[in-house]
């Protein structure tokens, strides 16, 4: 019985309750304190210590005024690249059909980080690869994941994937039929036949989106053997409306985030740049 998330971005109010609930339940540290200048997003991207991440995309050009919000998470791919490349067998598929990294088996080799087409995995301050577990411990005790539980607007829905897909498809129909022109473009990313994720068999954590995948930092055609070239959020920013401002945006240095907590700076990605 595959369990997963249906994240409906049209219902997200950007409250970040999901991020906080995730960190609280999973006892993840804060990542440092710096104003990104990128809308209301100050946590930047999914990482070894941020397993839910709310994206904010401001689109105020050509007469449109739109602020997209979406809570991003590990996709729990039906065919998971991370799991396939893991040399130690640390990454397993659970009885819930979710993808889980066993922290005591992981040796920190980083192969999974390179393999994930969505850039959701990072090492935590202990050097262990980590990401969303779909609250494996809560599931084992009959509880829903912390983020879905805390979401006040049902933007994050948890359940049986088949059932979620049916619900999501109905929702897309309703949105497209509604009078609101902004909803005409509603579609699902990560369900069978979506035209995006076939190669990896779809996603057990899928999204309802309004704009093209790249606006949310999602790859157009995630592949099993592909490498993540950019952290997921960076893609979103590069294509986001802030470009239109011509304003300089400085991205927070990833290493600095961990330093603030006394953890090790673990990535080599340089993310301080002028756009």
């Amino acid at each position, binding site marked *: 019985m595959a369990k997963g998330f249906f994240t409906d971005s049209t219902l997200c109010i950007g409250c970040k309750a999901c991020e906080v609930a995730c960190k609280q339940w999973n006892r993840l540290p804060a990542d440092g304190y710096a*104003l990104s200048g990128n809308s209301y997003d100050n946590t930047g991207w999914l990482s070894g210590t941020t397993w839910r991440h709310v994206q904010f995309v401001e689109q105020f050009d050509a007469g449109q*005024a739109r602020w997209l919000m979406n809570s991003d998470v590990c996709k729990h791919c039906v065919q998971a690249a991370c799991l396939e490349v893991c040399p130690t067998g640390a990454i397993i598929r659970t009885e819930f059909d979710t993808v889980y990294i066993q922290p005591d088996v992981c040796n920190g080799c980083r192969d999974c980080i390179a393999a994930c087409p969505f850039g959701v995995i990072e090492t935590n301050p202990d050097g262990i690869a980590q990401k969303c577990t779909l609250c494996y411990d809560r599931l084992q005790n009959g509880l829903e994941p912390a983020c879905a539980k805390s979401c006040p607007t049902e933007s994050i829905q948890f359940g049986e994937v088949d059932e979620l897909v049916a619900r999501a498809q109905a929702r897309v129909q309703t949105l497209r039929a509604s009078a609101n022109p902004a909803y005409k473009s509603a579609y699902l990313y990560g369900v069978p036949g979506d035209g995006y994720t076939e190669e990896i068999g779809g996603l057990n954590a899928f999204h309802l989106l309004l704009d093209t995948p790249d606006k949310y930092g999602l790859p157009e055609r995630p592949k099993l053997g592909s490498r993540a070239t950019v952290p997921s959020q960076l893609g979103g920013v590069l294509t986001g409306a802030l470009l239109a401002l011509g304003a300089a945006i400085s991205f927070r240095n990833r290493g600095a985030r961990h330093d603030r907590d006394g953890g090790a700076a673990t990535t080599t990605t340089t993310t301080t740049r002028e756009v």
Partner: protein
Amino acid sequence: MPGLGTSYGRGGATTFLMDLQRTDCMVVMGSNFAENHPVGFRFVMKAQQQGAKLIHIDPRFTRTSALADLYAPIRAGSDIVFLGALINYVIQNERYFKDYVVNYTNAATLINPAYGSHNVDDDGFFTGFQPDAKPTPRYDTQSWQYQTEQGGVQQGNQPAQGTPETTTSSFSARVGQLLGGAPRTDPTLQDPNCVFQILKRHYSRYTPELVEEVCGTPRETFLEIARTLADNSGPERTAAFAYAVAWTQHTTGVQMIRTASILQLLLGNIGRPGGGILALRGHATIQGSTDVPTLYNILPGYLPIPTVQKNHETLGDYFAAETPPTGFFSNMPKYMVSLLKSWYGPAATRENDYAFDYLPRINGDHSHLPMFVDMYEGRIKGFMAMGQNPAVGGQNAGMQREALARLDWLVVKDLFLTETATFWKNAPEVQSGKLKTADIKTEVFFFPAAAVPEIDGSYTNTFRLVQWHDKAADPPEDARSDMHFTYHLGDRLKKLYANSTDPKDRALRDMTWDYLGDPEGHEFTIPDEPSAEKVMEEINGWKVGPDGKAALRPDGKIDLVNGFGDLRDDGSTACGVWIYSGIFTVREGQYVNAARNRKADEYASLGWGYAWPANRRALYNRASAKPDGTPWSERKKLVWWDAGAQRWTGYDVPDFIANKPPTARADWAKGGMDAHAGTDPFIMKADGKGWLFAPSGTVDGPLPAHYEPYESPMQNRVYKQHVNPITKIYTPKNAAGELANPYATDANPLKAAVVDTQKFPYVVTTYRLTEHHLSGAMSRWLPWLAELQPEMFIEMSPQLAKELNIANTEMVIVESPRGRIECKALVTPRLQPLRMGATIQHQVGMPIHWGYEGEVTGASANDLAALVADPNVSIHEGKAFVVNIRKKS
């Protein structure tokens, strides 16, 4: 509170969150609903999913706007123009709900001919303006009063002439005290002195063109909103409003709420499902703290506080001055005597006026701002800050920090060492050398507080719903609940004065103070923790036994009253807060704390918690039925008359006398509720009507009129008078006689200096973010919240940033007449310059969450805010003032 109270009879939200599901059109204005009330916002989204339109009118495009079907930008502080133009639209296009307006509002009532046919039209003063009144201008309200059937004019509830009107009008004035004959009416609405015609004339100058010029909202956007609102009101459809402190925090705040209240009455949207006005409260139990209350000018349950400004010598004098002869508040003496019995027990007797003399009389405005002015000028020696952080949250916060430095002693009781606790070493004034730690003689005591999960108690939420919470864990170490602190402070004071023979100490000696021991027999790990349920028992009220204490039932339980209907004015009942009465009762031999109820359903959820009064969820819900008692429509059914059972019935608890038929005739001479007909839904009001026109209750006019914010870059284009002529201006002076605010030269708004807007050209509004709470005292210390919004910023448009050569995240200096702060620029197209006729006006925004303590620190926006306030409630104008901005080089 007077905005809603004066219009409808109670200061609370007229509707409930779950009812928003049933709306056809949700207007959010003066509020950032999605960001600051995310859990309640789900009901708005449910309505949207059923086809309702969400309209957001706000200076900034926020997370609420992101979800809205229609967003309109507006200049901060111009809301009365926008709402007034909606009123004008509804009247001119005859889109008002005529049957509702004629029957349920005071539209037909005739006003004193002295009010005049062209009141306020040019100069901006209502009749009765007394510019030379001492100490500051005020209104004589006699010309605003109703005509009587006998051909005379009623006497208004006015403070005695010649005394300084420094306090707000009492609750009696808000519900109305109509003295002298039944109001005269013209149900055809044609008489030039009838409220409807006055309203029509008053708002005729509020046009879509004026909206564009003054609010900066494009005319087309305004008209689309007007059409949408009107299309979604009437017998078959309803529209709801939600506001929050972005309406209250203005020098015209109460009148902004009044304008929306009038509009909703005209559209027939009050008391009906999917309609109403939801006052979104800024804290978890801010409604509760007004009900119970923590305010200086009311007693629990909105009973008027005795004041030296009126004849409140004896209890009899007080009743004579404050009891309205008609309407539900005519029962006030029952609640007052029951309150005195609850506070003073056996010591409150008929012979001693139930110890009425123990109550202090107020002699002026003792609200937050004047209190800090007194402190700043050395008149207050000691201060307790419990769950409050004025060093960050206070207006002109630098002045407030300096005021703290002039105290002899300060008690801070909080979760963390807040800025208020450490001002003496870490305040910006200490950093700058303006204050020296060695010179500050304030002795500071810090008491660690218990957090909510460590306390039993209740919250009264935004729609008057009381919900109980049980303690889940003991507080760590020395941390204790506020109740623990307060109880033991009272206990020690009582012991200290136990042997005093001084008459002035009798109030303390006779005060009932019995809260130890749990009525339900729970074991406390902290043995001397008082029982929250005992407090709730007293709030509910009980019958008084022969010994003057609570009467006991045969089973040994306290003989609790079943509701405020049981309360008496003869000393036989005691009740701490009459409006909450009925919350804690004995049923089948068991105590039942209704705030504990947790039975939800798809709609009204009457089995979830307890909403005051009497568990009614939508107030004035008799108006959901036609005058004949049948629903206006099947789609909008809520409460109706069951002719068979001869009772009101429906999905909610009827807010009406349960068995009073729709055909009941009013008998004014009999008074009380008999003065209301079976068609009068606003039971608290003296005349049973919703007040379009307010003969009393608002001290700055019977109808809302637009005045500019006290600090505004533009001249008032509606009237000659620029600002609210009875704005409260505070003029604190330091020891050297210098003004804390250089422009606050005079408490008289007609004489005070006008701020130089060449120097401060930008309109600023302040606000909260989802990620933090108020001064940050509960959020900036938590890493998980701190990382989400780590630094103080000022939001500005790309256009303004370009003009000032400021790049995103660059440090800037923001200055107001009160001082300067430094923070980062957040450049975003969510802010747009306003095009107002020929001029372009820039608006910026600053969150209020940062200070110098905690996990993340930053400058406090409130350092810049002005010490001016609404004359009705003394609420500051934090939502619109002026600043200058420059790049920090």
